[in-house]
């Protein structure tokens, strides 16, 4: 099973595969992650088939294909649940989410997900700073990573805990061109996000 948060990362390594089942996301307000969040879509993004990411609360979008850019939503993860579907016997486990997590815990949980489920080999933190997300005090986490395909990518996750549940929006894209190209859309969507 793949971790929801990094399936897009993993998908980015499968160059040459044919994407099927993607649907165009309409512009305007849309519900994501099983309706746990609402955001204002800028249009021109394509939603990956539901159920592709292991966790039902996960949803992925891409504009130019997941190898190049992807936005991922994860909503209403309850205390005690991991952001990846995993079994007790798994040798490596993505840390379980707890509502009492510090910013350090939240960011390292995401980093571990990238490394464990996304197969990321190099992960470097660029910045961690406070941000308002979903009307809550949240964390903005910026980083670069290199996967097995040896392509450098950039990522930004905005993270908030609301009502004891975890909400994440992540942008992953190639460091050359696509991250900067997608960032304005991502920021607009994140700023418009609300819990349903």
């Amino acid at each position: 099973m793949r971790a929801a948060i990094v399936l897009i990362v993993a998908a980015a390594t499968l160059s040459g595969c044919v994407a099927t089942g993607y649907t165009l996301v309409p512009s305007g307000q849309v519900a994501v992650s099983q309706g746990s969040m609402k955001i204002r879509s800028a249009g021109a993004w394509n939603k990956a088939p539901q159920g592709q990411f292991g966790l039902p609360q996960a949803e992925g979008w891409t504009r130019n294909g997941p190898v190049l850019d992807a936005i991922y939503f994860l909503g209403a993860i309850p205390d005690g649940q991991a952001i990846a579907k995993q079994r007790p016997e798994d040798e490596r486990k993505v840390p379980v989410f707890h509502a009492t997590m510090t910013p350090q815990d939240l960011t390292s949980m995401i980093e571990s997900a990238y490394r464990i489920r996304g197969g990321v080999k190099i992960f470097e933190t660029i910045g961690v700073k406070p941000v308002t997300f979903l009307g809550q005090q949240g964390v903005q986490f910026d980083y670069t990573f290199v996967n097995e395909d040896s392509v450098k990518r950039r990522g930004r996750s905005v993270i908030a805990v609301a009502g004891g549940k975890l909400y994440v929006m992540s942008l992953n894209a190639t460091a050359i061109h696509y991250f900067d190209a997608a960032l304005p859309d991502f920021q607009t969507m994140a700023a418009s996000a609300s819990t349903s």
Partner: protein
Amino acid sequence: MQGSRRDFVARAACASTLCCLSPMAWARLLPTDLTPLVSADYRPTEPDERGLWQQCDDLEREIASSKLLLDDAALKSYIRGVMERLLGSQAAQLRIYPMRHPEFNAAMTPNGMMIVHTGLLVRMRNEAQFAAVLGHESGHYLRRHTLQSWRSVRAKTATMAIFSFGGVFGLLVNAPLALSLFSFSRELESEADAYGLKLLNGAGYPPEAAGEIWSQLISERKASAADRKARYKDKSLSMLSTHPPTEDRMRDLTETAAELARASPEVPRDERRNEYLAAVTHLRPMLLEEQIKLNDPGGNLYLLQSLAQDGWDGQLRYFEGEVYRLRAEPGDDLRATQAYAAAVALANAPPEAHRAHGYALLRGGDREAGHQALKRYLELAPQAADAEMVRFTLSQ
């Protein structure tokens, strides 16, 4: 990066790895009669071998420019020195590429390119153990195992159709499935073991170092399983495994090493632990970060304890705290807090130990001490990537 199936098979055959094996009856090989089959100026002459070398040369160009290459001049120079101790002038035929990959593994191609994972570097306790791996892989090259393996695999190409994925780079560096599929027969692995021991012994290293590696790996995997309350399983019996340490292989290495040592008891031997530590110390934070963030608590704690055989320092205690923090089982908050407290009281504690200590104290309700620790972190690392977040925490 997609190639034809033929390309895929050829490129896969480029690589031999530490992993093996087929569980069949066999007899222990002795190193005494093994001689190199590759001369110092060896170039392939047979058409199929020339083609294989060409494929591997292409692969090497990709590896050499990969972002996953650990480009560290000091380490490169050190590895070259170890190779020269082992092989003398023949070391010039081989090129070693350290790659960022947390798994324990190394690989050899027939054209003389060797890949060493960072997950191997972090687990070696001394130069003798590292040299044992380099010697084993050199044995594959000098005994021309990859060509034998390639000719064998080529005859089975039809069975490879199901693996028609992946590119060259992904195949070698991150596809243990494919690597193990093309791994050597047990006889060839055994021969490389024996040849490696011969090189190790001749270079003045204690030959038992080779067996120690597998012993450590088995202990690490057992510790990992115990933490998960799972049964240890010797995965080398699985074709898809990258873990090579069968108990019988380790036993054979130990017996042969003992024979070599008995044959020349007067030879002074040195595991060169200090030399190895000096070569990798500056890389250790990165090497440990790669392991700890994979959250395999039992295996990680075993690794840290083995690295602390000369005593705990602040860096190792910090990572011990990180293991408990990521595991987050009942009691781990306290264990992590204690480890961080120990770390910041010792030499060599990284600034992050103060940050982790501060957040652990805050979680435990000690606001004043927590803030003091976070302030100390900012004093030590004012330009830290998360400084703004930590300042915000202090303002709350």
